């Protein structure tokens, strides 16, 4: 079974927003929407009660987490949102009725209603590129080389290799409300805050 995912080495991310911009460019994401968003977490004290200069910050890239148990797929009345054979969640725009229940069912707010087409959209892991053997644009464009794409069930994929090399206690995912997010984040020195 294939489970495509992105592993982000947060320690390497410099917050250049290159991934966000690349995503918008290659996927023609409407103004005001971000299929791939970058947040700056911090500066927060390294220890309880601490203050500058004992602070830390990191950048967190957020996109569809291509969950193992996607609630967006469960609530979709027309099966426009579907989990495909490669483990990614895709939207068949011709089937989408724009009810936006998938938007409500997503805990990460990474689905958007395209006001022009009147359908819901989100990160596709650049399915048009990965089908061609390439990697998602946010991965190839990453200036800090912080993003690793691949099949988590294939030990030879870039994503599996970086996870294998990393202390499992330093590997994180976004909060799980039963949806089991697939994407992973590596943060070694700083305190993971989500």
């Amino acid at each position, binding site marked *: 079974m294939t489970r495509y995912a992105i592993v982000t080495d947060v320690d390497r991310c410099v*917050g250049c*927003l290159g991934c*966000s911009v690349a995503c918008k460019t290659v996927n023609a994401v409407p103004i005001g929407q*971000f299929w791939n*968003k*970058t*947040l*700056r*977490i*911090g*500066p*927060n004290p390294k220890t309880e009660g601490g203050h500058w200069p004992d602070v830390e910050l990191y950048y967190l890239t*957020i996109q569809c987490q291509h969950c193992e148990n996607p*609630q967006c797929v*469960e*609530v*979709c*009345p*027309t*099966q*426009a949102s579907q989990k495909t054979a490669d483990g990614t969640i895709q939207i068949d725009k*011709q*089937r*989408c*009725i*724009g*009810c*936006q*229940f998938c938007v*409500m*069912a*997503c*805990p*990460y*707010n*990474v689905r958007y*209603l395209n006001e022009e087409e*009147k*359908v819901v959209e989100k990160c596709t892991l650049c399915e048009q590129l990965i089908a061609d053997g390439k990697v998602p644009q946010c991965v190839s464009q990453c200036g800090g080389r912080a993003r690793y794409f691949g099949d988590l069930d294939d030990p030879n994929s870039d994503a599996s290799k970086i996870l294998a090399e990393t202390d499992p206690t330093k590997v994180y995912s*976004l*909060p799980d*409300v*039963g*949806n089991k997010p697939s994407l992973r984040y590596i943060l070694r020195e700083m305190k993971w*805050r*989500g």
Partner: protein
Amino acid sequence: MEIQWPLIIFTLCICLSSGTFSCLGLLNMLNKGQKLQVSATIVTMVGLVVGGAASFLHLQHAERLFNGFGHITSGITQELIGIAILFVLAIVYLVLARKGNVPKWLSVVTLVFGLAMVLVMANSYAMPARPVWGTPLLLLFYLAQAVAAGGATIWLLAAFCKCDEAIQLSARVTAIGGILVVVSLAAYAGYIASISLPAVDFYIDPTDPTKQIAATSGFGNELVGGSLASYFWSSLIIGGAIAAVLGLLRWMRTDNPLPFAAIALVCVLAGGFVFRVALYILGVSAFVFY
């Protein structure tokens, strides 16, 4: 999240029509309110149609509705199936009511199915991704609303038809529904006060740097004593307590019931409407920063 007005109208109509149908079934089981059978069934059907039409307004591509529609795990599919069954049941009931012979078993089915429809509808909104919604208390609130709205509707129809036996019983149902609304809202406020979302302390969205940091707790204070206090207390007092008091008053007295019934119904619907708006305002996602 953004307030979805069509869905507020939809859930309100389903509570009203399902509650009315259930209350009608209860009356018939007890051999009461024969004069109301036709009018109450018509109110049920009108409620279902108006609610269904409102939910269509929420769809961006309603013309694609049957283009693959039917994913059974979807709450929308379950709601549509439930509405269709309820509507067919109402037609059967109407035909038999006009013949003056609604069997007891159909009354039981009506009672059970009306309440089940409310639970199916409420369950489709009880999403873990929206912590304020993802609780059985949402089901309890909608159920209480259906009991109160159904009781008050039957009460109003009974008052119009001067059907004393139905007035007495429907006033009791309204009172019980009103009390249930108060209890469910109080429990809901307690639950909302206990919600604490994952926090990341300080953060900033570089594409929206002036955006206020999102709250991850304190929703209960907001609801009971903050900016949403008027929504909560008006829902509890107008939508629950007043309806309960009116029902209890009518339960004990026998004077003209029409104004009591009309005020009770308006109060239940207004309170339900206001609390639904509050639920949308508080319906942030589990990971609130994005």
